[in-house]
């Protein structure tokens, strides 16, 4: 199958999936108890019945649910993500503003987890019964099992309170100008704790996968051949074995892009990281469905793209996949 046909088919699938995601999310959000007008009135310190009607009319909440859904779909298809009930501004701008912070956090977390996790997996695979391997197993399982918010709080207590070497919250020092090398260093300094918290969960999975893959690969015939050819240990491990052991790791990494937002909600809330996760959390608390739907739509696009990229990575890593995918 040609590469273009493959891509076109995947895109059509992706669009259908997005539409399904939109409808499903819309219905789910509306099924939650609670009325956005009551929330807005609550924040106003109470409101008369007339004001409540006004709020409902302003955001089209006085219409029937199918009508609201159709209107919403119409708007989204014409590129309009709607108007946030709560933040009182177009959703697209709001989501776009927060996207960068989340992208930075997620890429830093997944990137560092991927590198570190794989390396730990390799170390563990080289001596499966050694002390290092046992340590890796313990740390991996603990990192995976601990709830994100707990890990976050513990890291905060340790590295922001007991040994105050990292800032507690936010993405930048408010006093700093927002440009230059100083600012980049400042953002990186703020990034360490939230990214590490998020990386902990992923790292566990990568190291487990890499370990299993490497153990299998290192026992394979072609590795014996490679060794017999007289290749150095490093070359055998990193070039020959790793290339094959990486395929399951790529699969996991691709899947995880989908779960990343779930982790980001907690991490961003604990660390006050100004990203989409925190925005999602606040929108849920306020029943701000347009904003929440905008974020979910954005993340579904992200997941679809990530899947596409994963498949493309397979095709690169393993030529045999080209016939299947």
């Amino acid at each position: 199958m040609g590469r273009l046909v493959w891509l076109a088919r995947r895109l059509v699938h992706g669009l259908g999936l997005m539409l399904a995601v939109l409808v499903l999310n819309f219905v789910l959000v509306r099924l939650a108890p609670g009325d956005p007008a009551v929330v807005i009135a609550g924040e106003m310190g109470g409101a008369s019945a007339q004001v409540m009607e006004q709020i409902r009319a302003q955001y089209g909440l006085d219409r029937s649910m199918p009508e609201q859904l159709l209107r919403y779909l119409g708007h989204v298809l014409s590129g309009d993500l709607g108007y946030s009930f709560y933040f009182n501004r177009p959703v697209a701008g709001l989501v776009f503003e927060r996207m960068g912070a989340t992208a930075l956090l997620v890429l830093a977390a997944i990137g560092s987890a991927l590198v570190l996790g794989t390396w730990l997996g390799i170390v563990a695979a080289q001596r499966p019964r050694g002390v290092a391997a046992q340590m890796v197993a313990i740390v991996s399982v603990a990192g995976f099992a601990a709830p994100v918010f707990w890990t976050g709080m513990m890291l905060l207590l340790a590295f922001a309170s007991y040994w105050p070497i990292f800032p507690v919250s936010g993405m930048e020092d408010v006093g700093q100008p927002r440009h230059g090398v100083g600012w980049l260093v400042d953002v990186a300094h703020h990034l360490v704790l939230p990214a590490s918290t998020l990386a902990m969960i992923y790292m566990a999975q990568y190291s487990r996968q890499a370990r299993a893959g490497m153990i299998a690969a290192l026992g394979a015939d072609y590795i014996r051949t490679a060794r017999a050819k007289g290749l150095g240990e490093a070359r055998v491990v990193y070039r020959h074995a790793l290339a094959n052991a990486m395929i399951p790791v790529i699969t996991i990494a691709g899947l995880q892009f989908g779960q990343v937002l779930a982790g980001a909600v907690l991490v961003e809330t604990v660390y006050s990281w100004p990203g989409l996760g925190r925005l999602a959390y606040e929108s849920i608390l306020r029943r701000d469905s347009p904003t929440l739907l905008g974020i979910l739509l954005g993340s579904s696009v992200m997941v679809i793209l990530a899947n596409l990229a994963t498949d493309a990575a397979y095709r690169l890593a393993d030529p045999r996949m080209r016939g299947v995918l």
Partner: protein
Amino acid sequence: MTGSIRRRGVLSGASVAVAGMGAAGMGPARAQPIDPKRGGTLVMLGATTRHVNPAIQSGTPAGLPGTQIFASPLRFDDQWNPLPYLAETWVLAPDGLSLTLNLVKTAVFHDGAPVTSADVAFSIAVIQKNHPFKTMLEPVTGVDTPDPHTAIIRMARAHPAILLAMSPALCPILPKHVYGDGRDILTHPANTAPVGSGPYRLTEFKAGESIVLERFDRFFIPGRPYLDKIVMRIIADVPTALLAMERQEINYIPYVTTVRDAERLGKQAHIQVSEKGFEGIGALNWLAFNTAKKPLDDKRVRQGLAYLADRTRMLRVLQGGKVPVALTPIHPGSPLYTTDVNRYEYDLKKAEALLDEAGYRKGADGTRFKITIDTIPGAVETSTGVAEFLRGQFKRAGVELELRTAPDFPTWAQRVAGQEFDLATDAVFNWGDPVIGVHRTYLSRNIRKGVIWSNTQSYANAKVDALLDTAAAEPDPVKRRGEYAEFQKIVVDDVPILFLHPFPYTQAAHAGLKGLPTTIWGPMAPWDDLYWEAAARR
């Protein structure tokens, strides 16, 4: 961080000698005199808000920045006395039918336009039409503007609450030339890019993230404000906010909501805490009864439950005894508060007798009836803790209490506003004068299904209705106090609500921050006299 403190400290130390030269009477465009109080940035905890225009929305999230951005006709001291603000003098007519405001002549808006009586008239009309507190300006018939610096508010009847209605959070003066351009005020773009005449102007509004205010150099009170910049950072997670305060990443939390958190912060050497400044908003934590539902429609049942509640012990258990009992619908910090009411001290025998009398005798299993309680999501001490404590108390007399904890505010609000509850914990604000924040809960004409913080208890007592209407228009302060005392007595006897305690607010600030806002409106008043002590300045 420390380096910059030291540097700034040395600079301002050197400037002390020149200070105090430009004390008063200079025009707004003069060069700034050097003042030891001047300078520095305050980074503080902010709250998520839709916009910063308090004319169309109440509540602290909009009110905190709003009262810095907009000036109001009057402000108040810590003894409920009005003080001049945009109005340098004012006269409330003896018949109570008009309030004349004589405006400061030097006041200008952040865009340079003068503040005139036309702006006052415009703002009062906007507030009357759009502010959620409909009773606040209800009797106002119009505002006369005989000259640019005189505004006369005309009222259909005497309305003593009018003075408190001129407070910073309740009566922001909006520039007519900005907000009166014909666009809908509820969605006006200037609500997030405001133009006011207050001590600080807004320079950045990032929804749900931060609000930045900067000193307004032409503020009409000479020499003020002192701070150069205020950054309100929104940190949603309370433990993170407390840690940020301990680490001096933020240096002011205007509303610490639990005794436990306040004590934790107060233990730090660099932090000062104050319980002053919350009398005006008058937040009460209470237990609401749905008087329209059986068995709570019977006053004797409600009284019986009140005798079981044992608030003193509840507060000892939940708040370490550090919070007093609130006996009545009026906040203990208000001059109208009375303690001459039934106190419902714990009395199991009395409670059982009342429940028996109402016809709810113990069944074979020892149970009289089963009711539910909805808790408002928030601190355990003020919501679920109360419910759990009450469950144990009620059980002593055979009343089963089932907890329905709501995962978040909207779920709770839907149940309470929809009047689908038996008992519910709630925190409600007095807002200064009872007419503004108290009447809404008890007037039978304010039973409105679906409206949060209306009379959701479905409480109806013709005598209370009449008393509240009389007191609202009572020009004689002594008589008015008597009427409200009687109102409190009746409501406490009827128990549509069992009042628990004043909400335990505390403000916490860096010890180097002086002039904390501790008037009756506390943090919701202009911070024009808030300053960094030179040594601690940042």
